[in-house]
């Protein structure tokens, strides 16, 4: 599978200001484990499927599905969702390459979909994901799980499950690295005055 360039995404720069690690690989593992238990408790009896928001939401959803599957003793269906075509800033930048969208096995109609993403920031990505999801089917319930909530919401959107609440300033940037995509697991915060977003 060819690598997809992050066109229009976060700037891959070694910030001149020291980046500090706010979540280690261990922290991430524990957070996902806790979220898996929370999902299990709060959705007791419901038909839960996980849908990861591309790019890093996908490996997170896969890991969560594995953990949730251990807890519940079943295989939890996982899907991938590309939100490029539903972005509200589509016209403002050059056309972006599309990422795969794949429904979880069995579809999403009548299910409880838990959207999974790495960072919750303005909320626009989640809004786009809700629009994209509505074209794929009609879930009964939609919930949101994120690894990091860094605040500064611009829309009335909140997460149901949060790995870590991380208050940040707009001038800081949060960087999530996952082994499946970046070769290592970490969440770092850097005080780059250029302030690149989610």
């Amino acid at each position: 599978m060819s690598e997809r360039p992050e066109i229009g995404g976060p700037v891959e720069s070694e910030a001149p200001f020291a980046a500090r690690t706010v979540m280690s690989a261990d922290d991430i593992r524990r957070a996902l484990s806790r979220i898996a238990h929370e999902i299990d408790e709060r959705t007791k009896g419901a038909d839960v499927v996980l849908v990861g928001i591309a790019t890093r939401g996908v490996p997170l959803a896969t890991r969560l599905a594995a953990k949730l599957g251990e807890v519940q003793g079943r295989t939890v269906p996982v899907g991938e969702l590309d939100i490029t075509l539903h972005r509200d800033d589509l016209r403002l930048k050059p056309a972006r390459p599309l990422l795969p969208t794949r429904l979880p096995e069995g579809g999403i109609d009548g299910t409880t979909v838990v959207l999974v993403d790495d960072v919750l920031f303005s909320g626009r990505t989640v809004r786009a994901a809700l629009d994209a999801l509505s074209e794929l089917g009609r879930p009964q319930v939609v919930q949101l799980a994120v690894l990091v909530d860094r605040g500064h919401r611009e829309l009335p959107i909140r997460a149901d499950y949060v790995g870590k609440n991380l208050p940040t300033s707009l001038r800081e940037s949060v960087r999530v690295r996952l082994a499946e995509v970046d070769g290592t697991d970490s969440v770092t915060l850097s005080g780059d005055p250029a302030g690149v977003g989610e």
Partner: protein
Amino acid sequence: MKRHLVSAGDLTHDDAVLVLDTAVQLAAIADRPVKKLPTLRGRTVVNLFFEDSTRTRISFEAAAKRLSADVINFAAKGSSVSKGESLKDTAMTLEAMGADAVVLRHHASGAPYQLANSGWISSVVINAGDGTHEHPTQALLDAFTMRRHLKNDTGDLSGLRVAIVGDVLHSRVARSNVLLLNTLGATPVLVAPPTLLPVGVESWPAEISYDLDSVLPTVDVVMMLRVQQERMQAAFFPSSAEYSRRYGLDRRRFELLPDHAIVMHPGPMNRGVEITADVADCDRSVIVEQVANGVAARMAVLYLLLGGSQPPTSEESA
């Protein structure tokens, strides 16, 4: 990626792969409950067709509508009788209508190039077939089809050998395919009687042969071109019967192909002339699928050229 799509040569290798990858994602919409994306909402696409072509026009129309664009169909009868009023005046009218993209099919080679470069309009120009010059979206849907069957829907077409058989001289499909196949790493093999190959074809990046039987065992794809009856009148070949005997794809020739090879045709077919009915309908013929792939390929082109503020930028694309 260039602003207009006038020639298959406008696409770099990376541009072409991007179009195909995008088409793969967009093709999936056909399986969804809501077969529509809001991506081009508020954009106006004008199908400016100076030549009748229901199938290509409908394909572009479906592609634009699936992306929620507004579509205006303009069937201009610009014959040689009414020359002079055709292209420029029509283009200026479309500009006034606020067209974001003009999909142009024209009987004169070079018309989309002129439209894109004349300064008459500021819309994006997409060539839907100009004279005997090019048909880039056809080449893209052909490449998409080949990649799906022979390359698992990923990457490019490296190493494939593609026979293109028939009236190469008058075929815009052949020209665009020769360009795009080379860009994607494949080798075109042109097979035709000498009268239907253009002067200077030896300098094209393709192999040439007059003998179909010897070529068929060596290729992964055989693409049959439509041959028109009028060519007989102009002495390009003596009769349909002789043409079919020497260059038609029938069951005997089909058996010469490797087991994995696919049969393609841009349509519409002259059943019995360049291809027999049983071959056209057999399970290794992807002719019908090409039509569906045409919508996906055209959606990809429309999205990439119109979906953002400009086409995708990268170090490599033009």
